[in-house]
């Protein structure tokens, strides 16, 4: 079974309060030198059979319709090699 990974990130211009909270917590724990944090979502889709171009197009459709909200988020789709 092949795995397709969809990463969803807030668009750069959209404020990310959660990422900001993480960024503020890091130096308190002694992890210095991290200028900014953006938090996103990772979806792992286990695909039956081969990952064809057609199947990938289908997954891009799903990413655009359900997994992400294109108004505020961008996504990338990639095949994870076993």
């Amino acid at each position, binding site marked *: 079974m092949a795995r397709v990974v969809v990463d969803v990130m807030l668009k750069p211009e959209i*404020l990310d309060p959660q990422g900001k909270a993480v960024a503020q917590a890091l130096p308190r724990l002694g992890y210095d030198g991290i200028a900014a944090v953006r938090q996103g979502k990772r979806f792992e889709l286990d695909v039956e059979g081969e990952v064809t171009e057609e199947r990938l197009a289908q997954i891009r459709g799903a990413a655009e319709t359900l997994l992400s909200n294109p*108004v505020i988020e961008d996504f990338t789709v990639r095949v994870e090699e076993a």
Partner: protein
Amino acid sequence: MRVGVVTFPGSLDDADARRAVRLAGAEPVALWHADADLHGVDAVVLPGGFSYGDYLRCGAIARFAPVMEPLVAAAHGGLPVLGICNGFQVLCESHLLPGALIRNDHRKFNCVDQELVVESTATVWTSGYAAGQRIVVPLKNGEGGYVADEKTLDGLEAEGRVVVRYAGGNPNGSYHDIAGISNERGNVVGLMPHPEHAVEDLTGPSTDGLTFFTSVLKAVVTA
């Protein structure tokens, strides 16, 4: 007049919405997320709460509930639809309204009696207010920050589609202090504050919210 109130798994304020409908003088009709039709109602309220546990994104799963299919079609045809809080998020996810709601900029859950300015009385849900009228209704959410791109915001402002705006300080980082907006036609309105919680002196900070429900009653009866 019959006003449907949709209950999704995780809806919280459906009972209060039905109560507000009744106090306004209309007949509330409970609609279920799995319903395939709207039971012939004259208007629909999408209530507040945490539909599907706010999984994925607020409103993202509810958007694909069976009842949404006839609802979206009817809304495009002019059916009055009011989305409150989570209902507003569902309307944005459904693309019936532009933009999106993100986590409050201060990252805290907000629960306050919020002052609002009614900016537009050109919608079926706000026709009973005076333009510029100040009202106080409860606001309670964790993800109430309204965002949209500049072009969308300029369009909303130019077309008078900002329906209610926060007054006395921005409680969540919403762009342009936007608390609620409408579609072009003015039949679909979404807002984060809860007019259905401000319909009786006993339980609300005011009765200012009742006018949302009496407005639509008048609009449908005279239509």
